[in-house]
C-alpha cells in the first residue's frame, strides 16, 4: 500500500512537472536557407515581435509559432518576455492597425518542423527532444 502511494505521488509529480517547461527544453530551428548558425536573444525577440525581418547575417526570416502548450509558453517567457495572452494582444494590435500579419501558428512540434523545413526563411521553436530532420538548429546566445 505504501509502495502504491509512493507510485501515485511520483506519477503526480511527473505529470505536474511535464506541464512546465523551461528554456532548456526549447530548441530554435530554422529553414536551411537561413545562413546563420546562431542567433542572439535580442534578434530572436525582434523577429518574433515583428520588429526585425532579418538576422545579422542578412538572412530574411519569418517567424512561425506553436499555437499553445508548455514549450510555447516557455519560449515566450524566456525569449520574448511576455505571457501568451500578452503576446496575442501584442500581435492583434499590429494586425488590426495594419502594421503586421498574424504569424503562422501550428498545433504540434511535428507540424512546425514540417513547415520550417519547406518554407524559405522560416524560424520556429519546438521541444528540445523533438526530431528536427530537414531543418537546422540555431544556438541562442
Amino acid at each position: 500500500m505504501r509502495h502504491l502511494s509512493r507510485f501515485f505521488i511520483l506519477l503526480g509529480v511527473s505529470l505536474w512537472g511535464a506541464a512546465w517547461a523551461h528554456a532548456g527544453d526549447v530548441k530554435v530551428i530554422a529553414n536551411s536557407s537561413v545562413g546563420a548558425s546562431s542567433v542572439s536573444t535580442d534578434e530572436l525577440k525582434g523577429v518574433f515581435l515583428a520588429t526585425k525581418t532579418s538576422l545579422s547575417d542578412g538572412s530574411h526570416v519569418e517567424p512561425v509559432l506553436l499555437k499553445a502548450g508548455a514549450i510555447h509558453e516557455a519560449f515566450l517567457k524566456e525569449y520574448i518576455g511576455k505571457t501568451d495572452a500578452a503576446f496575442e494582444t501584442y500581435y492583434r494590435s499590429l494586425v488590426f492597425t495594419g502594421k503586421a500579419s498574424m504569424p503562422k501558428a501550428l498545433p504540434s512540434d511535428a507540424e512546425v518542423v514540417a513547415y520550417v523545413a519547406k518554407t524559405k526563411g522560416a524560424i520556429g521553436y519546438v521541444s528540445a527532444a523533438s526530431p528536427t530532420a530537414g531543418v537546422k538548429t540555431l544556438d541562442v546566445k
Partner: protein
Amino acid sequence: MHSKMRTTVLAGLLYAAPVVMHAQFDFKVDGLPVQIHSFASQGFGYSNDNNYLTMKTSQGSFAMTDGGVNASVRVTDRFRVGAQVYDRDFGNLGKWHPQLDWAVGDYRFKDWFGVRGGVVKTVFGLENDTQDMDFLHTFALLPQSVYPTDLRDATIRHKGGDIYGTIPIKRLGSFAYTAFGGLRQDSQYGGYPYLLSATGGHLTSYGGPQFGADLRWTTPLKGLLVGASHMGESITGKGTWTLAFPGEAPITMAYEEHSNRDWTNQFYGEYTVGKLRLASEYRRYWRDQVIFNGTWEVTTDVRGWYASAEYPITKRLALGSYYSRWMVSWVDSMMGLTEAPSQSSPDRHLYDKVVTAKVDLTKFWNVKVEAHFMDGYGSPGMYPDGFYTQDNPQGLKPKTNMLLIRTGWNF
C-alpha cells in the same frame, strides 16, 4: 426606431457569431495568403442623472455598438497591403456611417526604415491607434482624458504616409520611431460637430494637414517603455450656422473656422513586471482657432493624464483600475473672456475613478464590467468632453456614477 432595430439585429448577430466563427479566416489568391480578421463589441451604460457620451445612460442605453473587418496580404517578404472598415453607433456618434479605418501599402526596406502610405492609423502614445479595439484592452472605456472616444477622429488616422523603424542601441535597449504626415478628415458624426449642432452649427467638412512623430524607447530595464509624441495641424471647418431669434425667422449663414496654431504633445510610460501592467500618459492639446468667419478667436488649452494598473488574477479574469484627470481653460477674444484654470468648478474638469473586471469567456470573446465615478462634467458648450448640453437639457449634476458592461469578439 430604425436605428434601434439595426442595433438589435447587429447585437443578435454578434451574439451568434462566436458559435459560427472561432478563428481568423485565411485563403489564397494567386498563391498569396490573404488573412481576414474582424471584431465587434456591444456595450450597455447606466448612469445616475447625467447622460454621457451622447447616450441616454440615465435611462440605461445599449447604443454602444461597433465593429470592423480587415483583409491583408503579404505580397513579398517586404511588402504588405491591407485595409480595414470600421463602423460604430455610440449614442449620436458614428450613427452607422462606416469609415475606411485604414488602407495601406507597407514596404519594409530595412528593420530601421520602412514606409507605409494610404489611410494610416496614427501612432501616438500607447493606445491611440488601437483605441477602438475593445478586445485589446482590459478597460471597457479608455481614459477619456487622453483618449476621448467622442473625438477619436482628431487623432485616429491620416491620409498620407509614415516612415518608421526600430533601431537597437547596444546596452541602451531599442528605439522605435514613426514620423507621419497627411490629411485629417473628421466624420460629420463626431463629437465636435455634435457640440456645434446644439447652437445651430452644421459642419459639412472638418480637417486639414496633420504631421507629427512618435519616439518610444524600450529601455534596458526589463518591462519599461517610455515615449513621447508630437502632432501639429492646420484645421479648417466649413458649413453653415443657423441663428434663431425669438419672434423672428431663423437666419442661416455660411460658416468657416480655421486654426492659427494647433498642436498636441503626449508623454507616456508603461511598466510590465510579471503579469502586472502599469501605464501612465499625459496629453496637452493647444488649440488656437479663429471661428465665425474670422470674427472670433478662441484659444483652448486642454490637459489630461491618467495612471492605470491591470492584473490578470487567473487565466480568464483580469482586474484593472485607473484614475483620469482632464482640465480645460481658454481665452475668448470676442468676449474678452479668460477662463482661469481653476479646477474646483465642475465645468473646468472631469476626474474619473474606474474599476474593471474583464472575463475572457473564450480566446476570442470577453465581457467587461466597469464602474466609473466621475467628478465634474468638463466644459459642455465650449469643448467636447463627453457631456453635451443637448443630451442634458435638465442641466448637469456635478458628479456622475456609471456602470458600463461591454462584451467583445475578435477573429
